[in-house]
């Protein structure tokens, strides 16, 4: 899988525009096919790490690849979005097509590498190198202010990665191995965990992005070409969440618990603040970028809920957001290609001349809002359900996101698709072409599939998330302020028999397993 886009990329560098497009498309399609094969052959309930490749390079630095269910889903997401991105750039990119396509294919190599890497330093190389093609895509093929945006993007992410590298060196030193699965089982001293956690957090929080280190994202999105935005929102942001799941949580459970409130607070602030900011944006891409920050905040509260629902919810939000925000950026791209502006006020009444477009846009808007039946709902629901078990306050604040989200997305939809046709040029735009159908259609199907039958996506990850949950339960017994059910003193006659069950007195016969494996709270 890594090889195909790599070869494709090299080939693209040395071919003219037309050939480069074809090569890129073929390469990504082959990779998509390989991804599906990978999914089909993934043995659910089999070994934790499958498709393992191992080759020592020098000393203890290894070329080690292998995936579990979590990585599998993210890889499938990446290869699924890739051909769509090539399709989105088909006509939009006219200069240096070969280099552009090569950059994309390199990026695909690196993205798959990040999710599949089993060696600490291999992961680091992929993780950081992923910046370079993105930097180039924004800086070379971006909008007017591209230099500023790409510079900001680079600065932010570089800052995080320096700290992460130091932490990685220390870890390798301490544990005596760079093999990630081994590190995931290694118990680091609690004091050291805090420092290590913070170092990793610096990097992942920027990637995620969490408030307040999110300001690179709107600029990067606005300046990036459509396909760049799709990959940025669809996959690159997921590296942060993946990092939390792969490193922060299993390697430093105590520190994760220790800093959970920091995560909650930043996430709560992000949900409310960025949603409000999204409400007042004039630029479509900026609006969607800010909404991404709000959605990613739901991911982080879910991941740090320390229970199965929260973590699975966080993963589903990531996958769903990858599809939905990618699709929304494509929707913006579709009309940007026609009118070359992202100003919301230049559009209006598109439902009249572009009814098919309006239908797709509506579907993705609703998925972004989290309407049940679309992918957005399943993830949001599970994450919020997970966090509610930890703190009703956090759940309350994070859930206000559903109100504000509905507000800004519907406001956007009104101004773009509804209303009167204010501008003649916008009113004259043709509806979707076949190429655009082929881009949006598959995503729409995937969004509905994930909403109606998410089992296909949850099943491969289930065992891994249960393992993670079990590890967290063992290592973070202090728990935090979870809700406690207590029989009131007046009614203790009945209550006393149940009381020893850790306060959860009121459970009926099918006792929820997760609630007992999850950190029980220090009652």
């Amino acid at each position: 899988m890594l090889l195909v886009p790599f070869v494709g990329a090299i080939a693209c560098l040395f071919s003219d525009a037309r050939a480069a497009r074809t090569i890129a498309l073929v390469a990504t399609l082959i990779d998509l096919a390989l991804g599906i094969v990978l999914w089909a052959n993934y043995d659910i309930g089999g070994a934790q790490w499958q498709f393992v490749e191992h080759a020592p390079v020098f000393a203890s630095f290894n070329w080690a690849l292998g995936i579990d269910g979590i990585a599998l889903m993210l890889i499938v997401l990446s290869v699924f979005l890739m051909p769509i991105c090539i399709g989105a750039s088909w006509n939009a990119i006219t200069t240096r097509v070969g280099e552009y396509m090569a950059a994309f294919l390199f990026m695909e190599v690196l993205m798959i590498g990040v999710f599949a890497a089993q060696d600490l330093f291999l992961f680091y190389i992929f993780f950081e190198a992923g910046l370079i093609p993105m930097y180039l895509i924004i800086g070379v093929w971006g909008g007017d202010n591209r230099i500023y945006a790409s510079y900001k993007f680079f600065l932010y992410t570089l800052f995080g990665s320096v700290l992460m590298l130091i932490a990685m060196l220390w870890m390798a030193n301490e544990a005596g191995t760079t093999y990630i699965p081994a590190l995931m089982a290694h118990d680091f001293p609690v004091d050291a965990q805090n420092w290590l956690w913070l170092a990793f957090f610096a990097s992942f929080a920027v990637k995620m992005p969490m408030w307040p280190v999110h300001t690179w994202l709107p600029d990067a999105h606005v300046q990036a070409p459509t396909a760049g935005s799709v990959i940025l929102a669809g996959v690159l942001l997921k590296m942060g969440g993946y990092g939390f799941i792969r490193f922060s949580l299993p390697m430093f459970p105590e520190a994760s618990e220790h800093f959970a409130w920091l995560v909650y607070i930043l996430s709560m602030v992000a949900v409310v603040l960025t949603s409000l900011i999204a409400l007042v944006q004039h630029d479509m891409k900026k609006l969607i970028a800010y909404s991404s920050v709000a959605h990613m905040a739901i991911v982080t509260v879910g991941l740090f809920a320390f229970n199965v629902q929260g973590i699975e919810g966080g993963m589903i939000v990531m996958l769903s957001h990858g599809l939905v925000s990618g699709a929304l950026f494509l929707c913006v791209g579709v009309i940007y290609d026609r009118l070359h502006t992202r100003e919301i006020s230049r559009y209006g009444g598109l439902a009249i001349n572009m009814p098919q477009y309006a239908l797709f846009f509506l579907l993705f808007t609703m998925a972004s809002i989290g309407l049940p039946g679309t992918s957005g709902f399943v993830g949001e629901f599970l994450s919020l359900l997970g966090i509610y078990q930890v703190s009703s306050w956090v759940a309350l604040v994070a859930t206000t996101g559903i109100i504000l989200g509905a507000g800004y997305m519907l406001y956007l939809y009104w101004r773009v698709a509804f209303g009167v046709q204010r501008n003649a040029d916008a009113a004259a735009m043709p509806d979707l072409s076949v190429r655009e159908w082929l881009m949006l259609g598959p995503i729409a199907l995937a969004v509905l599939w994930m909403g109606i039958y998410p089992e296909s996506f949850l099943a491969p990850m289930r065992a891994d998330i249960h393992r993670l949950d079990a590890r967290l339960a063992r290592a973070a017994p202090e728990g935090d302020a979870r809700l406690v059910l207590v029989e009131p003193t007046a009614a203790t006659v009945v209550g006393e028999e149940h009381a020893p069950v850790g306060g959860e007195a009121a459970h009926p016969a099918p006792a929820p397993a997760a609630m007992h494996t999850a950190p029980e709270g220090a009652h």
Partner: protein
Amino acid sequence: MIEIIVFAPLLAAIVAGLGNRGLGNTVAKVVTTGALFLSCALSWPIFLGFLGGTAEPGVVPVLHWVQSGSLSFDWSLRVDTLTAIMLVVITSVSALVHLYSWGYMDEDPDQPRFFAYLSLFTFAMLMLVTANNLVQMFFGWEGVGLASYLLIGFWFRKPTANAAAIKAFVVNRVGDLGFMLGIFGLFLVFGTVSIPEILVAAPTAAGSSITFLGMRLSTLDILCFLLFIGAMGKSAQLGLHVWLPDAMEGPTPVSALIHAATMVTAGVFMVCRLSPLFELAPVASTIVTIIGAATCLFAATVGTTQWDIKRVIAYSTCSQLGYMFFAAGVGAYGAAMFHLFTHAFFKALLFLGAGSVIHAMHHEQDMRYYGNLRKEIPITFWAMMAGTLAITGVGILDVFGFAGFYSKDAILEAAYASGSEAGRTAFWLGAFAALLTSFYSWRLMFLTFWGRPRWALSEHIQHAVHHGHDDPDEANPPRQENSDMGEPHHVPSPDKGDGTAGYHPHESPWVMLIPLLILSVGAVFAGFVFHHQFIDSAAFWNGSIAYDEHLIHAMHDVPLWVKLTATIVMLVGLFIAWLGYLRDTSIPGKFADQLGPIYRFVYNKWYFDELYRLIFIRPAFWFGRQFWHAVDVGFIDRFGPNGVAELVDKGAYAAKRLQSGYLYSYALIMLLGLVAATSWFMVR
């Protein structure tokens, strides 16, 4: 069978929606309406089965949905008495509204879209009422919200329609926040989201307490309260009612189906579905009672002052929903459902009748420009009459009554009989609201159908008369209430002295009148035929709601004056309306002048919209701008990346040669650093 009932509308919606203009109006109409009549035809036998006591409740699994840890829920369809009632209400009204829309939407260019939305709505509503777990109920809940959003904003060129649509969705989302937190809490406590399992386990949680937002509260009370917030949003109860009157921006058939008969009753349905839970939550039930009674009165007061015929009926709906809620609050869930059932028929009838009037009056909705339509559109008049008799509750004790007579009486009796403080309060508020109901309903009838014609002043009518009816650009915002139905007007006569401006209203086509007549039958007989089962028969309910025998006995033993209260206040309301709007039409004006501030307060709907705009919407935008400019750009960027950049600019003069600014050099440095680091580690 239930699968066909539920999924036929969905299929029809998909066919009509995706086919859209390519398919043509007729195909879309036939497919959707046909699917609905099929569902309707299949629903009645189910209902009659439960009525006859032959049917058994059951659950039909469809598809597994989510499995996450101990949380697991499916797509499944549950049928029991409660569902069966909702099935007939939804499918019957929806089928009739589909048919009615053939006439009403006849000239609209977007008919496939309209019918697709209607069918989609019906599907979502059916999913809601057949839900066996809370999450599927939430799916239906949000699905109807989406359909409502799309239909309110159906004429999307109108800014007001868009604003109303967004308002409806967002206000409902506020309620959903409560609903979601309620579901989370129930899962936390019971470890499941399955409704029957929760209801079985509920007694074990009675008396326990839970920490919520740092407060220690009775578990079931707080959870029921959270769920009730959801119900308040959907059912437009006081505080979250603001979206319902604005929702009248949608086409009138939509108002009849969604904002009167079905969707807005979802909250009542939810409370009844979870009634065993609410039974165990006395505080939450008291809150339900109080909010219900307050809404009932509030909406009735506003209803007395509005001039727009649809808004009067909208506030009336809001008020009737209040009745249902306080019935549920005092424990009379059977009465609440009964009122829901009868209300669906007579309120749909009133809305469709109003649609027919609006249609006849060339899209004039202001009752001040109506008058004397009795003779012009007699069938509509008699249908509206049946609806009015039903809503005001006309009837003679133990002999015969129109639909509302039985259900409203049952609610008032139950409130009185409950004996609690809140119940008594609700009784008095409800009785006063019944007076107002009678008043505003008759006011509407008198203004519309009696008196002298006052059409001449209406802009819509003048348009119709002067410009003829073929002028496509006549309505100022294009495609308002869809203009003019193609019925040839009589030649305008220059005589304007009679107040008609030469305009002659025309009766609607039969395709619109037939639904009116069928609903009239429901409005007249639904109460008489079904009241015994709904109110008195525990066997009929068969455990699908909490059924309180004692309350029912107490209801039958209330003093005679309580039983007569509803009738008396009805007559008083009728008398006042007759006095003010037929006998001496100057009275209302004088009255309003005398009570100036109060009148304005009521007329402006208690200033809820203004208040919300002031404390929620404006600050949201203001904060949004502040956070963006001051925090993101002004602070984080300034001291973050831009600050660093400045520092680098100033301080790194010496290092300038290293900072070549080319990417490859950065990459090279990074790579070298990596190699150095790893080698150090390996050599160590």
